[in-house]
């Protein structure tokens, strides 16, 4: 497997993508089943070819083939195997290759497992996917080729940026891309639906699993990225409103709106035009996310492997995609069947409001993220929009949204009575208020914000639990009977309730960190102590340790909290000689109540005769792990809703199979 094999496979994939972009469209136009079926085969071929190219690059990284420039720039013989593999997407070129691989994965999956969807819709969708694939493959081959050779090959590589050498970050880009690229498939579905003038219940049912898969992956990907920033950057925070972080949040917000509007479309046949528009926006924001991260146009602390000229290429792809999509939208949106009107107090009414709020939040984040870019282009003034902007605009709308979530989930389709909803949610309202009151009276952080935040979390979790209890009709008829009734609840309902409860857990975690955080900092000589709330940290000693490709200064810190056995923490400062740089490894002690987070700072030489002092910084982050736990629960909810689709297919199959079996 020489690198040229990968190059060749990519070139072939480009040819296949070009064909895939045209032939199935022609087939759908002429209603020719054979031409339409070509899309499936082409999608599978693309997956095989791009998979080959990806494996070729991975092999070059694993065996440290330093005749390949990409390996020289990003690898090192001493790097652990895991990071040799994940280093494949640590570079710009490699990450774009991963992008198209996932694109091919979605295309291949659509061409293989989704035989149940309307062939004409599938053919057109795959054609649009082929167009996207063509653009990105051309980009890789002509502007970001990972297989470029270098001569003479150096003996050693430059190594991967050490803060990327981390298990949390190893899987962050693939998950994020699964989300971004998943929305490309939804976008392709929308374009195909617009072409056919058919975006209806059947369309929504075909798109739903893909949108849910993309949303779930993106949720988990963002959570992993935030978790990584939390423990790796040593600042003790989980979200910085940095442009690169916002770049992934915007598609998530639009995608969340999309998942909900698809539900309305599937159930009630309404919001067709809006759903198409959201699908276009979700993908556009995904592309903008890729562009922001890869171009370096915004000053971000997270900008890796950025290159302005390549940014221009991605900008071109965005412009083309948007131009095409909006032209199509303008031409065809009128041909879509007019939506049914609906009652304001109903599930769909609440979901419409949910969409409005999510769109507003997306817009405020968009303005805050891109305003500096626009202003500089027009006036030359350089500005940055600080985190307070985002908390001031994001929080009020998000709070309104969180208040409405359980109401919407409790409302029934078509028509609901406002009083019925409030009465059925009475216990959840009571629970939230009682919890807030208890906290106000006895809690450690009785600020208004803390109480409101905890009440919100309790409201979301309580309402989900209540709904399950209602479905089980309590324990009437015994435990078995109520379990039986719970078994009959559709998976999609479980998915929704669990995702909403997960959102509540996230709200609790963010409130905990946001309102109850403690911080302490001091320069300590060995045996010196630092007080953090009720806890005491003692810097026992500082020692040197050698890692596989780094040297570390390790602090031995004793953490003593009242009522608990003392624990030892090991914060480190690591020096990577191959790249001549330092990283900070925070030591984090996690418990259900929160994290104790300790960072070792630089050594400070004292006066003659005095011992060397080390800066020690510590945080107490109450409920911090709940943020990521909640995001994981939300992901689980998304996946359960997705599983409903497969359960439905199986039910349909067994329903058709049984009469046949009876006949024979």
């Amino acid at each position: 497997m020489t690198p040229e094999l990968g190059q060749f496979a990519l070139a072939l994939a480009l040819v296949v993508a070009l064909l895939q972009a045209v032939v199935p469209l022609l087939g759908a136009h002429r209603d020719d089943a054979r031409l339409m079926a070509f899309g499936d085969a082409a999608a599978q071929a693309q997956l095989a070819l791009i998979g080959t190219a990806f494996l070729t690059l991975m092999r070059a990284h694993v065996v440290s083939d330093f005749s390949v420039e990409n390996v020289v720039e990003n690898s090192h013989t001493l790097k652990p195997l895991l990071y040799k593999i994940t280093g494949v997407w640590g570079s710009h070129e490699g990450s774009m290759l991963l992008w198209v691989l996932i694109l091919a994965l979605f295309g291949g999956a659509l061409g293989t497992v989704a035989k149940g969807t309307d062939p004409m819709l599938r053919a057109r969708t795959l054609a649009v996917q082929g167009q996207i694939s063509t653009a990105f493959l051309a980009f890789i081959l002509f502007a970001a080729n990972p297989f470029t050779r270098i001569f003479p090959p150096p003996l050693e590589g430059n190594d991967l940026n050490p803060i990327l050498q981390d298990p949390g970050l190893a899987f962050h880009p693939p998950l994020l891309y699964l989300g971004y690229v998943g929305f490309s498939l939804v976008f392709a579905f929308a374009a195909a639906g617009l072409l056919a003038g058919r975006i209806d219940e059947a369309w929504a049912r075909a798109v739903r699993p893909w949108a849910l898969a993309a949303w779930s992956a993106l949720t988990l990907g963002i959570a992993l990225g935030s978790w990584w920033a939390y423990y790796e950057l040593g600042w003790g925070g989980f979200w910085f409103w940095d442009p690169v972080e916002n770049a992934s949040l915007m598609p998530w917000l639009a995608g969340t709106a999309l998942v909900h509007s698809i539900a309305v479309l599937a159930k009630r046949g309404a919001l067709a035009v809006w759903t198409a528009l959201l699908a276009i926006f979700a993908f556009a924001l995904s592309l903008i996310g890729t562009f922001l991260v890869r171009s370096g146009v915004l000053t971000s602390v997270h900008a890796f492997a950025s290159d302005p000229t390549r940014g221009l290429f991605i900008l071109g792809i965005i412009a083309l995609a948007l131009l095409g999509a909006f032209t199509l939208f303008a031409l065809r949106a009128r041909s879509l069947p007019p939506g049914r009107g609906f009652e304001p107090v109903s599930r769909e009414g609440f979901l419409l409001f949910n969409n409005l709020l999510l769109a507003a939040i997306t817009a405020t984040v968009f303005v805050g993220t891109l305003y500096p870019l626009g202003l500089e282009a027009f006036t030359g003034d350089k500005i940055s929009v600080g985190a307070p902007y985002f908390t001031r605009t994001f929080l009020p709308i998000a709070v309104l949204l969180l208040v409405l979530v359980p109401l919407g989930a409790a409302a029934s389709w078509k028509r609901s009575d406002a009083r019925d909803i409030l009465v059925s949610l009475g216990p959840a309202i009571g629970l939230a208020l009682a919890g807030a009151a208890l906290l106000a009276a006895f809690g450690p952080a009785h600020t208004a914000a803390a109480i409101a935040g905890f009440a919100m979390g309790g409201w979301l979790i309580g309402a989900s639990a209540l709904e399950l209890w209602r479905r089980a009709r309590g324990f009437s008829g015994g435990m078995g009977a109520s379990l039986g009734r719970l078994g009959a609840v559709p998976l999609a309902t479980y998915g929704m309730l669990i995702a909403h409860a997960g959102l509540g857990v996230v709200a609790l975690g963010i409130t905990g960190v946001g309102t109850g955080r403690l911080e302490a900092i001091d320069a300590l000589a060995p045996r010196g102590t630092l007080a953090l709330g009720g806890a005491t940290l003692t810097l026992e000693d500082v020692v040197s340790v050698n890692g596989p490709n780094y040297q570390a200064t390790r602090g031995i810190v004793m953490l003593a909290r009242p009522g608990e056995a003392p624990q030892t923490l090991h914060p480190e400062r690591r020096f990577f000689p191959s790249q001549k740089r330092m990283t900070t490894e925070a030591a984090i002690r996690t418990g259900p109540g929160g994290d104790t987070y300790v960072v070792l700072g630089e050594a400070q030489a004292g006066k003659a005769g005095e011992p060397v002092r080390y800066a020690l910084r510590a945080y107490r982050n109450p409920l911090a792990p709940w943020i990521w736990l909640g995001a994981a629960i939300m992901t689980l909810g998304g996946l359960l809703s997705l599983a409903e689709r497969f359960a439905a297919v199986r039910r349909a199959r067994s329903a058709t199979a049984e009469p046949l079996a009876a006949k024979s």
Partner: protein
Amino acid sequence: MTRRQRLTRRFLLVLGGLVFLSGAVALVLGALKSNIVYFYGPSDLAAGAAATSHRLRLGGLVAAGSVVRSPGEAVAFDVTDGKAHVPVHYKGVLPDLFREGQGVVAEGRLGTDGVFQADTILAKHDERYMPRDVADALKKAGQWRPETSTPAPAGQGGS
């Protein structure tokens, strides 16, 4: 539902949408107005371009030999673009990539005494890339050496 009722409902919907939209816009504008942080290079500050009342960002290079650490995590250093120097005071742990001769962005307020009181110091995760604002400030001061991506030491510049 009569035609009149339908029209009333539509009117209310549009009205509600407008109220919501203007609320959101007001929220954004209000928040933007008070949370925009302007970026300056050392020469801009030396020329008196910035007000002392607003938060701002200062970008440039950490001047060689200027970093002074005192106990309790207080750090003093100069930010330079080769033409002007601005003294900066900061209390806290510096980012891993903070080093003399490297690009840095400090956020805080400019005191009336000309000392920049920083509360946040930003350095990138990746030192191969200089903060773009810093690169631009250096270009403006004529101190940019793209081939090495590190500018000439102070005193030799002014091309």
